[in-house]
């Protein structure tokens, strides 16, 4: 049974209000810079742990408190209403990042590498510290769906705007607005070469990926001729230079003035509106509904979703005119029980380790380098398909995961520290048992546990804790969620 939105909001408000009053709350600790302790970390049921593992970047103390007091369904409802969740702690973590909120013409004067570092740092800090975890996971989902690499042309500063005004703005809004904003986003137009698409001999790159990747899907029923005709509609969609650098503009001189035929419909000459009218059609096309539904199911439920589930989810998409929140609401509340195991992508693995163990991180280069070694630094995937969402892709290389596990547990990553004393007191003399509950949500198989104990052997208290943590982070169990 789920609460009505109104009841839920009231409840969420009470929960958030109650927390700020307490001096022991994570918010207070975050604001004061006091390290979190795990002494009060509450256990959650196996089911709730799974929910948190899949829908957050790793269960924090706060997530555990929330899901215990709300129940999993209301917890999901709360997460689907991120504006109801206070998030001062992450604001505090981001306070020194000056690029957030700056205009493109200002960012264009930044040093390229410094700005890219800051973008990646912000993404990591939000994933580790935001209480709006499902929102952040959806931000990552759409960042992948509308992938842009910062290494293409001016995307190194334009992506900062795209991240803010396209992805973060619409992550839980309406798909139509998201697609519309992405199509008008200078970063996307540069990334897929539409800023040079002109009538003399059109550039098909963006038109193709708009249908293949962003909306209809590769088997969504368009043809090579549709690609070429849509490319003609998109001639003249470009980006301003010089003083107005980094803003969208439509240049009628570059636009093909003749009628076009897209998806069987004659598009009369209408300048910028020609492609916009196709966007309206694509946004709510049944193939788009199926494509988006399939990708959402693969991210959150199962890598091989049954056809009926895809169909049902697509129907919700169409019935709600592409409301992302409504689709998720149904998908997560009704369908989650059908989920199948997924391998954590590098980002899930690294953020998950830090978040679950309440690490204090600056999110800067040293920790980012581990993501790079594993092949998932933020905003750098070169091709427009975005980093894969397939377990088999991500389990061909365990060594960098093992390296990270050992480095994190030993506090050897500059700028990232675990409160080992706090963890020791939470572990209460039996680090392997307690840390397994914390990281895996359950006890290690007794055979594995005694094997690991034996391998670690007779070492001092602190080393035992560190090797237990490293072993658990590196274990097969922690690679799944």
């Amino acid at each position, binding site marked *: 049974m789920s609460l009505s939105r109104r009841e839920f909001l009231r409840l969420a408000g009470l929960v958030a209000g109650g927390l700020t009053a307490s001096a022991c709350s994570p918010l207070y600790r975050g604001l004061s810079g006091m390290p979190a302790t795990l002494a009060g970390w509450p256990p959650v049921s196996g089911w709730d742990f799974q929910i948190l593992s899949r829908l957050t970047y790793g269960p924090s103390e706060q997530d555990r408190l929330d899901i215990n007091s709300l129940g999993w369904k209301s917890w999901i409802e709360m997460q689907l209403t991120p504006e109801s969740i206070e998030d001062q702690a992450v604001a505090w973590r981001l306070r020194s990042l000056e690029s957030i909120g700056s205009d493109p013409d200002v960012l264009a004067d930044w040093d390229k590498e410094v700005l890219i570092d800051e973008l990646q740092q912000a993404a990591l800090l939000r994933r580790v510290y935001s209480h709006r975890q499902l929102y952040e996971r959806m931000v990552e989902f759409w960042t992948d769906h509308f992938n842009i690499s910062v290494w293409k042309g001016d995307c190194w500063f334009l992506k900062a705007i795209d991240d803010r005004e396209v992805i973060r703005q619409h992550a839980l809004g309406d798909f139509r607005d998201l697609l519309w904003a992405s199509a008008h986003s200078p970063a996307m137009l540069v990334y*897929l*070469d539409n800023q*040079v*698409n*002109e*009538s*003399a*001999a*059109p*550039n*098909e*790159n963006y038109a*193709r990926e708009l249908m*293949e*990747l962003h909306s209809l899907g*590769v088997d969504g029923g368009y043809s*090579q*001729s549709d*690609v*070429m005709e849509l490319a003609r509609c998109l001639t003249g969609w470009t980006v301003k230079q010089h003083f107005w650098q980094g803003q969208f503009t439509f240049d009628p001189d570059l636009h093909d003035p003749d009628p076009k035929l897209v998806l069987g419909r004659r598009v009369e000459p209408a300048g910028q509106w020609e492609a916009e009218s196709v966007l309206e059609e694509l946004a709510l096309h049944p193939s788009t509904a199926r494509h988006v539904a399939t990708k959402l199911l693969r991210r959150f439920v199962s890598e091989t979703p049954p056809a009926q589930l895809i169909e049902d989810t697509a129907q919700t998409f169409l019935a709600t005119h592409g409301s992302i929140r409504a689709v998720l609401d149904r998908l997560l509340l009704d369908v989650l029980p059908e989920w199948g195991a997924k391998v954590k992508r590098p980002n899930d693995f690294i953020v998950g380790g830090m978040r679950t163990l309440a690490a204090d991180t600056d999110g800067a280069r040293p920790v980012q*380098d581990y993501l*790079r*070694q*594993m*092949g*998932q630094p933020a905003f750098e995937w*070169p*091709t427009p*398909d975005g980093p894969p969402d397939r377990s*088999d*892709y991500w*389990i*061909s*290389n*365990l*060594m*960098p995961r*093992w*390296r990270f596990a*050992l*480095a994190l547990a*030993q506090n*050897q990553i500059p700028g990232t520290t675990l409160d080992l004393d706090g963890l020791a007191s939470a572990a209460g003399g039996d680090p392997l048992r307690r840390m397994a509950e914390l990281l895996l949500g359950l006890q290690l198989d007794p055979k*594995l546990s005694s*094997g*690991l104990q*034996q*391998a*670690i*052997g007779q*070492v001092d208290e602190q*080393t035992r804790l*560190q*090797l237990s943590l*490293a*072993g658990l982070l*590196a*274990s*097969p169990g922690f*690679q799944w969620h």
Partner: protein
Amino acid sequence: MKRSEFMHVLRESCCEPAAADRVRQTWPAWMPRLAFGDAQRGDILVVVFLRGAADALNIIVPHGEAVYYAQRPTLAIARPDDTGAKAADRVVDLDGFFGFHPALRPLLPAWEQGQLAPIHACGAPDESRSHFKAMELMERGVEDPAGPASGWINRHLASLDTGNPSPLRAVGLGEAAQRSLQGAIPVTALRSISEFHLAGDRRIEQLMQAGLSSLYRGDDPLGRLGRETLRILDTLERLHPDSYRPREAAVYPNTEFGLGLLQIAMLVKAEVGLEVAAVDLGGWDTHFAQGANEGHMAGLLADLGQGLAALHADLADFHSRLSVVVMTEFGRRVQENASLGTDHGHGSLMLLLGGNVVGSKIHGRWPGLESDQLFGPGDLAVTTDYRDVLREVCGLRLNNPALSQVFPNYRPRQSGFVRRG
């Protein structure tokens, strides 16, 4: 450390004179000399995938085609006899009709030795012109998306028992294993040999390794991969990549691709049981500012040409059992677009490099570039299916008799790309 810095350090250490002197004494210091030898085993296969749909017409240029010049006013490479262009900017003629892009000049020695075989107008039947669908199907070696989900190289490994117990039987260079390598046989991705170890205090490392051995016992893919990773760790521990010195004639480009090839050569020479390596070179999706003799594509071709030439020179002692295959998902439109680039096309090419290729010859029937000879919206037609080439390499060079398992439901049409050893 940033990737570029890391490569810089590796390069510096390779070329450091003191290290070089050490290497010249008796055994190279980096070489563990493990015996995984097997007389029945076929060639070492190196698969280079050019990701993004490489423009075949500007790699092996059909300079004998007038249409090529008419359709590419800014992108065409000048004819070999075009005195209007600088000599260094003209096509390097190979057979009077085709020639190298000038950036591929480093491959001339291999061509002259008969060890390089380009196959032109080569590709897959897929007409989606989608990078991702085309790569997915090509790396699985199938035409029907409902076909086997494994990669063709993995099916080759699964169907041929070479009695090779090495955990480094097949390696994907990079952060993750290539699609062609994925399947039932566990395959490891190797980004860098020198990073492939646990970092930290030696005693802690050993305890961690023991702990990992106790945890990765399961008979699931992850359990198997974990055990393979520990065995690779064991093997690579005896290699000292920082003191590896390529043969003098082998100058690898200082790029990720060059570093990948250098590491492949290192594994080959170390005799650690490597049978297959896959490595990628990305960035070929040249819709915009492709360039002719300068610019984006020329840079990629320099990387490709120098890299392959270096690998070929470095592995001079291994030519009789080396097969390198270069492939890409499809080709690009004949006519250039208004943004000095080319859009997605159809037919492309493959390159074979090694001691047993039928070299010094451009393979494949040339379909021509006149409008009635083109395919779809103006693309080079496909006259050789890529599977004909891979299948022959698998059969004749890798000694795999189970070709119907590697390329199910496929009847070969062309042959003669490689010789039986």
